[in-house]
C-alpha cells in the first residue's frame, strides 16, 4: 500500500527540469512568433482602410475572446479528427502563438497610432521617404511607447502556457501533476511551481518598470 506513493527525491529533478525547460521553450516560441506576426498585423492595421481593418479585427477579436483552454482543445481535437494529430508541442505552439499575436497586434497598433501625423509630416518635409519615416520615426517611437504593454503580454503568455498541459504537453504544471499523483505532496510541489513563475515574472516586470522610467525622458 505504501509502495504506491514514493516521496519527492533528487531523482525527480530531471523531470522537473524537463517541465521547466518545456515551459520556457513554448513561451519563447509563442512570444517570438506572436511578436513578429503582431508587429506586421499591427502595422498593417494602423495603415489600412476601415474595411480591411474590420475584417482583420473580427478574427483577432475571436482569438482574444475565446478562452485559451478552449482554443487549445478545439484545435487539437480538430487536427486529430482530420487524421493527422500534431505533437502537443507543435499544436500548443501554434495556438499559443496565434493567441499571443492577437494581443500583440493591438499593442503594436496602438503604438504606431500614437505617433502623430504631424510628426510624420515633419519627417517627410525633411525629404525622408515614406519608408525612411516608418523606419526611423514611426517604428522607434511607437515601439518605445508600447514596451511596457509588450512586456505585460509576454509575462501573461508565460503564465498562460500552463494551459497547454490540457493537450498533453509536458510543461511545468503537467510534470508537477504527475509528481503530485505519485508523491501525494501537492503543497510542496505547487509552492515550488508558484515560486518558479514568480522568479521569472517578477524581475521582468521590475525591469519593465525600470526601462519605462528611463524612457520617460
Amino acid at each position, binding site marked *: 500500500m505504501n509502495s504506491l506513493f514514493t516521496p519527492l527525491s533528487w531523482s525527480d529533478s530531471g523531470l522537473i527540469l524537463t517541465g521547466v525547460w518545456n515551459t520556457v521553450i513554448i513561451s519563447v516560441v509563442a512570444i517570438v512568433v506572436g511578436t513578429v506576426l503582431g508587429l506586421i498585423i499591427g502595422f498593417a492595421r494602423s495603415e489600412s482602410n476601415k474595411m480591411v481593418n474590420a475584417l482583420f479585427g473580427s478574427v483577432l477579436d475571436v482569438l482574444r475572446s475565446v478562452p485559451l483552454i478552449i482554443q487549445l482543445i478545439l484545435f487539437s481535437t480538430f487536427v486529430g479528427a482530420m487524421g493527422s494529430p500534431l505533437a502537443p508541442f507543435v499544436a500548443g505552439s501554434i495556438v499559443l502563438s496565434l493567441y499571443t499575436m492577437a494581443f500583440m497586434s493591438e499593442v503594436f497598433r496602438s503604438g504606431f497610432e500614437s505617433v502623430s501625423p504631424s510628426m510624420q*509630416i*515633419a519627417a517627410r*518635409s*525633411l*525629404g525622408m521617404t515614406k519608408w525612411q519615416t516608418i523606419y526611423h520615426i514611426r517604428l522607434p517611437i511607437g515601439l518605445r511607447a508600447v514596451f511596457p504593454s509588450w512586456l505585460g503580454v509576454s509575462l501573461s503568455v508565460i503564465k498562460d502556457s500552463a494551459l497547454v498541459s490540457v493537450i498533453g504537453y509536458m510543461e511545468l504544471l503537467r510534470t508537477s501533476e504527475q509528481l503530485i499523483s505519485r508523491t501525494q505532496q501537492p503543497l510542496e510541489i505547487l509552492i515550488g511551481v508558484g515560486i518558479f513563475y514568480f522568479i521569472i515574472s517578477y524581475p521582468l516586470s521590475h525591469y519593465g518598470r525600470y526601462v519605462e522610467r528611463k524612457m520617460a525622458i
Partner: protein
Amino acid sequence: MISVQNVHKSFGDLEVLKGVSLDVEKGEVVSIIGGSGSGKSTLLYCINAIEPINSGKILVDGVDVHAKETNKDKLRQKLGMVFQQWNSFPHMTVLENAALAPRIVKKMSKEEAIEIAKKELEHVGLGDKLDVYPTKMSGGQQQRLAIARALAMKPDYMLLDEVTSALDPELVGEVLDTLRLLAEEGMTMICVTHEMGFARDVSDRVAYFHQGVIAEIGEARQVITDPQNPLTQKFLSKVR
C-alpha cells in the same frame, strides 16, 4: 524662385484656395497674414507637395511641384519647413535630430552629417544642448531645433507656418530673433505669421489672405501700416 500660379485647392466640397498666385524671388522674405481658416497653411502644404492641388501650377526653380514625374522627396530637400508644432523626434538627442536627415536622405557620412548638424545648432544658439533630449527643452528651444533641423538639409527656401503661435509669450522673441538672423543672411522665406511687427520689419513683402485669395499684397511696411484694401484694414485693426 517659387512661382504659385492660379492655384485652386479643395478639401471635398470646401474650396480652400480659390486662385492664388504668388512669385517669391531668391533672397526675398514674404510674410503671409490673415485670419484663421483662410488657407495660409494649405498654401505652404501645397508648395511642399504635402497636399495635392486641383488646378493651377506651382513651380520651384522651374520644376513643376505637382507633376507626376517630379520626385517629391527630392524636391522637399530644397524646401525647409517648420510648423506651429515643433515635432522634435523624442527618441533622439538634439544633435541626432539635426543630423538624421543629412545622413539618411543626403547619404552623408556620419561625421559629415554631425558636423553640419552641429554648425546649424550653433547657428540657432543650441550649441550647448547637443546631447540633451528635446523633450527636456522649452518650446522655444525645440522650435529653434526644428529650424536647425531644416537648415541642416541646406534648403534653398524656408516655409514657416506660424512657428511662434504655440509658444509661451516670453519664448517668442528668441525664435523671431533666429528668423531675423536667417533673413539677414539672405535666406528666401515664406512666413505665415501673426507677428505684425516681424512681418513689417523683416519681410520684403506682405500678403494678406482672405477666404482663399490674396486680397492684398505689397511692400511690407506699406501693407502693415497703410493697407489699401478695406478687408486688410479691418483685419489689422482687429489684431492690433
